[in-house]
């Protein structure tokens, strides 16, 4: 009986936690309509302790989405989670990001004035408009969660989540992101246009967009987010799922149409994303659907393809093969339990 109670309790806790993520998603959806699956993915990245890159044409709601998410978990309030937004421009300097030493008259010394990077949620808008120098300044912060200036290393906050947006490479006045930096982003998402009905709905209620945005409440604090992130780590991943990840990653290396294949780090990131996504979807285990949904967003931007044809098909082939393999698998849970 006690055991059962425990299980029920645990379940309740579980559902409380997961309901929070659902709440978060719902919250964002009040502003961003018809993009639930994308929102789920973005939240997964947040919970996987990663960063996300949104790429699309101007006006598809990238910044709005980023702002809404940021607002839902952080405010400008000093005591709460901090949200900063930087609009990247070609003349932006690294200093503008990380901060600079300023001479303090009273102390007769140079004092470090922290830049906007020292926050919890950073919205790096139009990141590819900045020069490579500035872009690389982001690198360390995103990868190591720290910033080094001279011989001093400044630790960033426990929660540091970057939402970067960029316009497609082809548009004018853009500097392509270096591979290393792209690799830091857990996912690259393209929002795309909404369906006709939703779009019409948006036009009907366009007045309310700003209103809604301002009305977005912060529904999570730092502690909650950290707790959720810890929960994600507990998600169970079956060995076969892991081998599927490996097969996909290794598959890119065997493909002659791929110039730069996936690294092991990509695999780890993929695994993290899968776990987070499963969590967001209210599951305690990863299934093949997760792989199918996430593979493109997580892996595609890390790979350099030889030609356009491969760009479209190579990864999808690998994923399909793995999905087929997994679907055909006959795993008996009880066998494992007995062993």
């Amino acid at each position, binding site marked *: 009986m006690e055991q059962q109670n425990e299980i029920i309790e645990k379940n309740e806790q579980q559902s409380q936690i997961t309901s929070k993520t659902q709440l978060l998603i719902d919250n964002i959806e009040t502003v961003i309509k018809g993009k639930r699956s994308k929102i789920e993915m973005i939240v997964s990245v947040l919970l996987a302790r990663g960063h996300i890159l949104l790429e699309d044409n101007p006006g598809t709601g990238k910044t709005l989405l980023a702002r809404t998410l940021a607002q839902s978990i952080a405010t400008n309030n000093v005591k709460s989670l901090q949200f900063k937004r930087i609009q990247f421009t070609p003349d932006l300097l690294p200093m503008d990001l990380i901060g600079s030493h300023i001479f303090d008259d009273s102390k007769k010394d140079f004092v470090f004035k922290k830049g906007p990077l020292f926050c919890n949620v950073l919205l790096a808008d139009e990141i590819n408009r900045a020069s490579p120098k500035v872009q690389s300044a982001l690198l360390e912060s995103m990868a190591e969660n720290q910033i080094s200036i001279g011989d001093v290393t400044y630790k960033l906050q426990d929660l540091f989540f970057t939402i970067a947006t960029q316009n497609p490479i082809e548009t004018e006045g853009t500097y392509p992101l270096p591979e290393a930096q792209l690799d830091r982003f857990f996912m690259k998402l393209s929002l795309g246009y909404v369906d006709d009905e939703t779009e019409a709905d948006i036009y009907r209620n366009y007045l309310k967009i700003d209103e809604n945005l301002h009305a977005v409440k912060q529904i999570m604090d730092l502690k909650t987010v950290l707790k959720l992130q810890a929960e994600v780590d507990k998600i169970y991943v079956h060995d076969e799922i892991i081998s599927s990840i490996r097969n996909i990653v290794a598959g890119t290396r065997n493909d002659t149409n791929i110039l730069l294949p996936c690294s092991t780090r990509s695999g780890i990131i993929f695994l993290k994303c899968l776990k987070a996504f499963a969590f967001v979807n209210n599951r305690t285990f990863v299934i093949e659907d997760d792989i199918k949904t996430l593979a493109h967003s997580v892996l595609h931007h890390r790979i350099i393809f030889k030609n356009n044809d491969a760009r479209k098909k190579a990864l999808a082939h690998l994923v399909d093969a793995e999905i087929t393999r997994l*679907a055909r698998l006959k795993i008996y849970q009880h066998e494992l339990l007995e062993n």
Partner: protein
Amino acid sequence: MTTDKKNTLVKILLHLIFLCIPTIVATAFALKGLNEYYTVLNNGWFAQTCFFFAGIFIACILFNLRLRFLPITAILVVILIIGQTIISNISLSEFNTFFYLVRFRIFSTLFVIGWICGWGFSRLKNFAIIFAAIIVLIAIFITVSESEFSFEGILKIFLPVILFAFYIIYMSSAMRNITAFSRARFFTFLRNLFGILALFLLLMFIVGLMMKSTFTDIEKIWDKKSEQKESDGLLERGSDSTYKVKEKMRPNPTFGKAKDNPEPIFVAYINNFLDDEQEIPNPLYFVSDYLTNFDSFTETFEKDSIIPYNDLFHPSLSEIDLYFSAADTAIMNTALLNTLTKIVDIDVYNINLSREEFVAPLTSFFCQPFVVEDDYKAQFKSAYRAKSVVSDLNSAYFVYPSRDQMLQIYQQMRYDLLASVENFDDLPEIFYNYYTSLPNSDFIERLKTLTNEITANAETPVEKIIAIRNHFFAVDEFGEPSFKYTENPGIPGIPSASKLEHFLFESHKGYCAHFAGVTLFMLRACGIPARLAIGFVAVDRSDKNKGWYWFYEDQAHAWVQIYFPKFGWIDFDTTIGNDDMEESPQPDGTPPMQINKANFAGSGKIISLDTLNKLIDFALEKMTLNDNEYVFETPKQIILDMTSAKILRDTANLKFSELSNDDSGLSLSFDENLKDIQITPNITQNEVLSLIPNPIPVDEFRVDVDKTEHENNKTPEPASQKPQNTNSGILKICLIIIAVLLILMLAMPYIIFKYYKYKAKLKSENVNIFYVYKLSMFLLNQLYCERKNLTPLQFATDITDKKYNTEFGKFMIIYLQFKYSYTEIQPDEKEFVNRFYGHFEKEINENHKKFERIKRFLNIKQTLKFYINNYGTAK
């Protein structure tokens, strides 16, 4: 490059081990079998296998090295042609050249077959299928042409052949997929191979078990239908299950043994007695044919087309009209007998003998079919009378020592008479040479030596004959007969060795064909004219009906006839008594003692009817009167007295009033007074007519069945019967197998569905969830709702739930949890799973009409798709 080389080597090795060697082994078996039947092959199956092996081996290596087929084969053909010209030009003796040429041709044929096989295996994509198809076709052909039809026999041929064909197809397709050699793959490959072979055997076993009863039934039908039709025995059976005596005979490993068929083939009365009181019947062998031609290659005794002094009277009975006769008095001259002869009357009542078949004792010259009396119509199909010129000396008692004193006296008297024949000098040369000719072979030389030994002390032909007979009847020191009768003498150790030689010198076991064949050659070796006859042995079994003989199937016989100048041909038999034959059933039924002898028979047309006085004005076209036959060119008008006549059409009785003008028919009269009409040899037709009474009293009038009607009845018959008697058994089996497979195939989806349902209902821990999943997926798939490339969850939520309004997505989450995580399934979830399927099926059934569901469930293609999608190896 090195890996390429290594791979090629591995490929060659694999081809050799898994394709060539099994093919060679199979070929070896086939060749061994062929060697037993074809003397041309000359008993060299091992060498022949080597030829084949060389061909397949060389071709396999060459073609695996990616050499081109045409140039290399062209070279091979050139080499073979050169070889043949060299051999044919070697100036050895003509025979040797021919002999080597034959050998070389066998070699080149086998080599080329091997060559093509090797090429096909290593280069052609679908060769294995063609190859297998050819083998199976050959097997079918052999089975169809096989005489004995038995379940085991079919299994013996088909199981290995199908297994082999299957193996070759599987193996060659597996070979094609091997591009690089790896140990793991190799073991998987082996495991798959053995798994599939085991499965196949199991399947065959199950099919065999299930079909066995059907098979045996058909076997029985087949046996009844065409038992011995092509068998080794002396009789063959026609489509209407009547017997015919074969026109050839060869000593075989087994004799078509008489089945338990107690029904006689025919019953005959021979008016041949040793005494005037007709107390001691003297049975005579019934001759069907003489086999005077011997083919020493196949050891077959055959009918010769040209026989000097042919005394065979062999009319086709079915062509003689009732009560009319066929006769050949010239035979009396060609039979070459002039003393101690008599004319014997024989009445044959046919039960199971073919309607055309005419058998009668030596030397027959007359035949007249007659009507079986009404009382016996159920028992006998037809009957005929025959007359034979019989020598007083001829008797079935010639050889067998008799206990009867009268017989002993007779035998002694006969011996004395025959002993007077000392030589055959007076015989015509053609005759003597023809009946004493011997084939040339080692066996005959050996036989001659033996014969000389046996007849060393004998001087006159009769003494020699008796010496030969004694050789076969001799007993050894233990009182055991040295020669034995058996229907299953077996084959000699060396397959193509002479069966007769084996019989005479080694086994001493055989049946009539062996005894008769060897005796024939021994007699001829002594210079005694002899020939081989086949027909029936007459066995006197009855004390009651003297002169009546019953002939059973196992009395079909082959024996020797010896010619004695003046006395003619005499039957001579050396076959050791067959125990089975002596135990033949006692005669059953009573023979029609009174023979319907029509003294007058006339066929013609009715001109007019006198219903009042029951008279018919009859145009007589043909007539027999006391066995004399008359044909009138212009019909003669006579008057028939029908007062006591029975009128018949076919088998139906008619009234007089039912007759009409222009009916043609046959009138018969059994009037004893007609017998007294004396017919002198040179009487004219008109004079004969004046002798018979007018009106003539008629006892029976048979109306001819209308000709056109007859034809109409007849024509469809052969059409429907023909396929039945030749291939009906095989056809039936094939149809049954196809039908069973078809039904099985159509029912397969439903069977699988039921199986999963059963499995899903088992409430065993957690496993049933898997089967519920499987069952649901199978059901959906069978109703054309396929998962395709979607993930199971997507399929469940996006397709199924939307289409059918089910809870499949919810179930799928539970299933996936079960599949991908360790968390235990909650009781409520379990409960959900347990009741899920019922609702699910109901919802789905609501969406599909019953007829539609049934139709879709019959689609095996959909089921295959399911398994290919779910179990095929991923690319």
